[in-house]
């Protein structure tokens, strides 16, 4: 579904990604870990099409299409979703209105009829109940004045409504209380489907107790330095990243397979 080959990216002249290789197939859940500043968010944003980052080398195929040539909205229309590490506030635009515009933009791009306000409200409320989002947040401006945890829940909620095919969650589990963590995990698990895939960026092994990944990767210095199964996360938790540092970066085992 997603093939990343030798991806290099930089921002403001500074190299951040230095040859990322990764293959994600339908139905899989991949966890991506790595120390602060290793380039996890950069990878997520390059995949979502943020043009702050310049891709200097490499290629990315999404369902056989050249992802890097698509605009951010085209990627979204093709089913790519990214939950932001730092969700953005949009004053004066209600959460509900925003989400309806988003859903209808996706539907329009896919040749489906747009939903009217009533039909949408029905879906929106049902999903809010299912994914533990306080209904009062629907009427408020997008993310404005939301607590850190509420912002993260809102990202998962949007994901649940938009039903992406490839979801990238950038530290959506950070800063959450234990109940919220379960809600996020529940959101991810609800999305699991043989036709979909998930890339879960996280610092903590604990979320992996609720979402069992098929693969765990460690991004280190702009490269995937290690790949393994869920035991790799446990190992990291015990050893810390010094352990990765101690090892020569090796080619990841799953990449390109």
């Amino acid at each position, binding site marked *: 579904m997603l093939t990343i080959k030798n991806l290099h990216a930089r921002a403001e002249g500074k190299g951040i990604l230095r040859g990322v290789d990764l293959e994600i197939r339908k139905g899989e859940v991949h966890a991506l870990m790595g120390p602060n500043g290793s380039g996890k968010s950069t990878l997520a944003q390059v995949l*979502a*099409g*943020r*043009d*702050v980052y310049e891709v200097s080398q490499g290629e990315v195929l999404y369902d056989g299409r050249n992802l890097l040539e698509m*605009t*951010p*909205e085209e*990627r*979204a*229309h093709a089913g790519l*979703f*990214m939950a*932001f590490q730092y*969700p*953005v*506030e*949009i*004053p*004066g*635009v209600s959460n509900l*209105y*925003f*989400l309806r*515009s*988003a*859903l209808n*933009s*996706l539907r329009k*791009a896919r040749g489906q009829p747009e939903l009217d306000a009533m039909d949408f409200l029905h879906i929106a409320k049902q999903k809010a109940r299912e994914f533990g989002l306080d209904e009062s947040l629907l009427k408020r*401006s997008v993310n404005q004045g939301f607590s850190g945890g509420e912002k993260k829940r809102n990202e998962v909620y*949007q994901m649940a409504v*938009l039903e992406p095919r490839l979801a990238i969650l950038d530290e959506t589990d950070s800063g959450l209380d234990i109940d919220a963590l379960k809600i996020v995990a529940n959101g991810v698990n609800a999305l699991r489907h043989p036709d979909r895939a998930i890339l879960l960026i996280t610092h903590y092994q604990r979320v992996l107790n609720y979402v069992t990944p098929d693969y765990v990767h460690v991004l280190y210095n702009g490269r995937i330095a290690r790949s393994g199964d869920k035991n790799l996360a446990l190992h990291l938790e015990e050893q810390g990243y010094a352990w990765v540092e101690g090892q020569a970066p090796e080619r990841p085992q799953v990449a390109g397979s």
Partner: protein
Amino acid sequence: MASQTKDLEKLVQQEYKWGWETLVEADTIPPGLNEDVIRVISVKKNEPQWMLEWRLKAYRYWQTIKEPTWANVHYGPIDYQAIAYYSAPRSNQDRPQSLEEVDPEILRTYEKLGIPLREQEQLAGVAVDAVFDSVSVATTFKKKLEEMGIIFCSFSEAVQEHPELVQKWLGSVVPYTDNFFATLNAAVFSDGSFVYIPKGVRCPMELSTYFRINAQNTGQFERTLIVADEGSYVSYLEGCTAPMRDTNQLHAAVVELVALDSAQIRYATVQNWYPGDKEGKGGIYNFVTKRGKCQGKNSKISWTQVETGSAITWKYPGCILQGDNSVGEFYSVALTNNYQQADTGTKMIHIGKNTRSTIISKGISAGHGQNSYRGKVQVLKSARGARNFSQCDSLLIGDKCGAHTFPYLEVRNPTAQVEHEATTSKIGEDQLFYCQQRGIPKEDAITMIINGFCKQVLAELPMEFAVEAQKLLGVSLEGSVG
């Protein structure tokens, strides 16, 4: 980041869509200004002696004063002798008695403007007084309003039919000595609208005026006077467009509002005068004096404006809060794009006890646009317990535009509470990306973010105007996205 900024700047390129010209025969006084011109205007309008004298007093005073230079706008000298001060569509020399008598060419213009002038469009619930160049062409709904004692007619007609009302209130809020442009208007004003709402009457529909400058080299100097008697209510809408011309045209209007005890007036403007082209050539100079007087206790006046047009806007709708417990409000969105300049804001003068005022100003600058907020809050000694809240937010699109805020405070009563907040933000690349990541195309995202920014103000507009204003904001920035 650079390419995002460029895209944003591109968004700002959009053509003026209201720039056609209507070919009607016009009865125009040759350019130039002197006492004879004023006498001719007065004769053409068959005015009583007091009206002529008022004009002449204004003209003589005007000759002794200078054009103001304090506003943060820049333009070449205006040649007041090169302007024609009166232009009436000739076929209407004898004013039309009904819509059937209105020049069809003019009616078509209004149709293009989307004005519900025709009988069958009365369902829209808007009574329209349309001012074309300098004269009021037709007023709809008059009969129906008359039954309730409401007077809604052209200013000239009011001078003929209700001279006692006009004489009593004319200049009571904006005296002819008020300022350079208001004084000029007092001398040469050609038409405008007049509204009187009798005691206790709630005007059942939105009253509306559309202004359009058509003839070349003419100035438009209209004058609006609205008097809301005790316990009455009226909501008034004003819309404006002009054809595209590469010379600048002067628009110097005066609006006076009077609210007596417990009366309420809402005055909304969607101003879309031709702003000039992308290089800053042509466009309307919009130098307007608007003021309301809350003369009675518990009265209320609200100004709402959405200013997207004009090459230069110089405009400060204000309220004199004279009656105890009276309330003044000012809600404004001003958008400047390309080389447009706007210096706009408000003036709230607290005189009565427990008077309250609210100011919400939203400035949007794009291209090389320069947007200044200038607001004055004055609390006199007498205004015990007066309160003011001001909020001025500026949004910048691109990095060649500017936003400026000039708040002036003058508080002479220690019990007064005055609060001022100001913010300046850039339309965020991160906000845009967030929307796009969710599938919302960039242009839609920009419109959404701008409308969100203006929400507090748009919420004050009557429903159908709010929709129009939202579209206008989108359209004024359209095309700048690649």
